[in-house]
């Protein structure tokens, strides 16, 4: 295990007073400065932890010094064996990182060791689950040209096709009756090496194989409303039903004799390149240059057509740096990984709030090189950011969540075809996750057109928008109201939320729900943080 250590400033909760400068809110591909009422709190993420000085050395060290009940990787490799290397897909990290990507570094190290051991049956699998396939450019970015050119032309670089019965294998059921069906190639290998990027505490562990390599038949046991509503939160594995199910599946996979060598990495929160440095600074510490950059960028973006603005932002490559790498037995590895994520992202916050505000950025795991459609806006706010807590939600039960995002009624027709139908046809009828699940899920999941597009085009699976809505289920159950500031009113209403033109209007509307003189807390993210709510 290699961890970078040097002191940086921890997360911070600011109490807004009269001298506090306006607070930066993300607003999709734009920014806004909002003056929050005196007495509001602003939760800032910790500063980026220092990067590993020698990432390649750290990776090699981790492979040679595994955690838990695992031998060093070279001891697990031998001539004549069947080796499958699986890796996280385009949804991680966010934004996509500058080259070389962590996956490239790790996979090159694993391949070097495999070559030294004389392993010649090696296949790489992008662990898509039900995500869209990656393009050649995206694969080259993640794996590097050397790996891509060595494997792709020979058909040895594959992407999971969870709808191909020929390439999936049912491994039976867990004690809880959950079907476990994963990639046949992986399941019949002598060793699976899983290369993970742990951007948030929810990622990794048994979720890597049990979700990343699984089919709808398997995923439906934990990607459902009940599981989401019973997770408190996804960032706390021990209180997450989503993780409990994945852990049962992971242990079942191990019990089937399938060996997994897990390699997990964590990133620091050095999220945006130098020209956007102001995004990572606290507003009262902005330099004259930061202020000038903010003004220049935000004024330009306000005049930029949405499509061009999207294209500019999607081209951002993050200077993320590896902050830790650990390898070996899945659970032992993930325990350390989670602590490293917490070390980077956890911010202690005293008590809950009546109103939680957040600005939503232009990107989430499912719109890389794509459009942030309204369902993804909801999922990012209610599914991801709301759940960035440990202990209890940052906002009290019955409280109000105010999000900022333009929320255009716009969808990527290639990436999100079933999202369009979900938005037009399902949400027009009901926004209740349970009703949606019982009435519509199966039809979308088995729709031959969506399956065709998932398998042959670059489309998310037909059931994927349902999962996005289910991610919101815990928040929807918990909150007394959701307000979207600056969004397309029709799109916002379609999701059952309330539109507001300004933050001031939204705060007044929220008071109708939570009462007068409410406590207000703003989550200043990204960069990412996890609120450790006491």
């Amino acid at each position, binding site marked *: 295990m290699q961890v970078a250590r040097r002191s940086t400033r921890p997360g911070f909760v600011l109490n807004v007073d009269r001298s506090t400068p306006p607070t930066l809110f993300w607003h999709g591909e734009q920014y806004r400065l909002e003056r929050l009422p005196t007495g509001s709190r602003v939760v800032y993420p910790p500063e980026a932890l220092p990067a590993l000085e020698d990432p390649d050395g750290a990776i090699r060290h981790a492979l040679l010094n595994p955690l838990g009940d695992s031998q060093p990787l070279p001891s697990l490799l031998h001539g004549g064996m069947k080796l499958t290397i699986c890796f996280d897909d385009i949804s991680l990290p966010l934004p996509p990182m500058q080259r070389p990507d962590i996956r490239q570094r790790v996979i090159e190290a694993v391949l070097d060791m495999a070559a030294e051991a004389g392993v010649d049956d090696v296949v790489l699998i992008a662990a898509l689950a039900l995500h869209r396939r990656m393009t050649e450019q995206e694969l080259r970015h993640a794996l590097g040209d050397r790996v891509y050119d060595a494997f792709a032309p020979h058909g040895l670089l594959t992407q999971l096709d969870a709808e191909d019965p020929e390439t999936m294998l049912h491994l039976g059921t867990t004690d809880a009756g959950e079907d476990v069906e994963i990639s046949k190639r992986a399941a019949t290998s002598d060793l699976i090496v899983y290369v993970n990027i742990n951007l948030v505490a929810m990622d990794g562990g048994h979720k890597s194989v049990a979700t990343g390599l699984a089919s709808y038949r398997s995923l439906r046991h934990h990607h459902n409303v009940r599981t989401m509503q019973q997770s408190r939160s996804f960032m706390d594995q021990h209180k997450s039903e989503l993780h409990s199910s994945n852990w049962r599946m992971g242990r079942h996979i191990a019990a089937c004799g399938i060996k997994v060598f897990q390699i997990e990495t964590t990133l620091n929160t050095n999220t945006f390149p130098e020209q956007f440095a102001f995004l990572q600074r606290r507003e009262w510490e902005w330099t004259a240059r930061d202020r000038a950059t903010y003004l220049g960028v935000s004024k330009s973006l306000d005049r930029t057509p949405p499509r061009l603005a999207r294209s500019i932002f999607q081209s951002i490559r993050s200077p993320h740096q590896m902050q830790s790498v650990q390898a070996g037995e899945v659970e032992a590895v993930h325990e350390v990984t989670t602590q490293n994520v917490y070390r980077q992202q956890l911010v202690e916050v005293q008590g809950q709030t009546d109103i939680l505000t957040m600005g939503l950025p232009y990107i989430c795991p499912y719109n890389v090189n794509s459009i942030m459609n309204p369902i993804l806006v909801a999922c990012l706010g209610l599914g991801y950011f709301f759940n960035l807590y440990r202990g209890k939600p940052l906002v009290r039960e019955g409280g109000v969540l105010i999000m900022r995002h333009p929320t255009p009624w716009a969808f990527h027709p290639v990436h999100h075809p079933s999202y369009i139908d979900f938005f037009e046809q399902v949400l027009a009828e009901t926004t209740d996750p349970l009703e949606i699940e019982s009435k519509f899920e199966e039809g979308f999941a088995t*729709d*031959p057109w969506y399956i065709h597009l998932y398998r042959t085009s670059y489309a998310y699976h037909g059931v994927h928008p349902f999962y996005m809505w289910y991610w919101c289920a815990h928040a929807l159950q918990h909150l007394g109201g959701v307000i979207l500031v600056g969004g397309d009113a029709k799109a916002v209403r379609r999701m059952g939320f309330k539109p507001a033109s300004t933050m001031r209007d939204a705060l007044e509307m929220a008071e109708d729900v939570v009462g007068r003189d409410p406590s207000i807390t703003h989550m200043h993210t990204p960069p990412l943080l996890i609120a450790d709510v006491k």
Partner: protein
Amino acid sequence: MRALLFERSLPRFAAARVASSVAPGRGSRFGPLRLAQLDEPALPGPGWQRVRPRLAGICGSDLATVDGRSSRYFEPIVSFPFVPGHEVVGELDDGSRVVLEPVLACAARGIDPPCDSCAAGTNGNCERIAFGHLEPGLQTGYCADTGGGWSEAFVAHQSQLHTVPADMADEDAVMVEPMACAVHAVQSTEIGEGATVVVLGAGTLGLCTIAALRRLALPGVVIAGAKHPDQRRLATDLGADVVVEPDQVQRAVRRRTASLAVGRQLTGGADIVVDCVGNQASLAEALSIVRPRGTIVLVGMPGPVLVDLAPLWQREVRLVGSYTYRHQTFPTAFEVVHAAALGRLVSALYPLDRYREAIDHAAHAGRRGAVKIAFDLRKEARPEVRRMG
């Protein structure tokens, strides 16, 4: 008597066409329609009666006429000048209320023996609509001899009249004629049990078709394309299972029929598509969403359109027109109107002298949250009538 008169005037036709291209309904300001003082039309012969309209609806075909957008196909089968109005509930001299069946078929034209179509009861397809003792005119409201509903009086043959039940409101009764069109479309189409039926358009005809489908056939799923929020609400209320905006219809049909798509064309699609719009876009849409060997029923009045018929040929699609009704359609139409309480579709009533406002309202009915706009002639000056009983 006062009446809205539509005269033959080529410059005014042209003006109406230009004006309506700016905004639908504008043809009433610049076109050949005017409020006039006329003599009441004479009774053409035995079996004819004078009808004093109580309510007279404004139909899509009326709007097309007023705006100069009607097909020239109709020129030889109308006679000028005429008083429009064929959706009428009126009152006879004896005080009884009647709904007009406007088709001027053999019986009304004094043609005996009747043509084959009339003999078969399909008087909507009468082969003599330009012959007999009346001037040409496919319906009352397009014939110089009979007058029409947008007036204080017109004449109708007894074969054209259906008595209104005493307990039926005028607003319900004025919906009977458009409902008869919808009933005829449903009854003349083979709709298998469980069929997927799409209704394009949710104006009066579309909504009536949905109501008729739900009461006279056993479709599995009825999908409606409706442009405006109130139309969507009413479509759902009248029995559509899936109601979407027009640009979402194809995706809704694809999903409901588990079809694939090739370009803009679904590989499968709906069993029946009822086109209640009747323009180029709706016909193209219908062709893209109907299944191979499926049926498109054209209910909305079309004009000249440019449509690629390759899919119709390659997929062996049936395209059939549905015009008016049989005489026997009306009793069923009365029942459906009553059962579905369709009087609620009458959104606004206007006196004759506000005809420009009325036509403008009708031309923008959907956008303004309205469905059926009608003239209210109950308060117009009328002679003393002899009440029955």
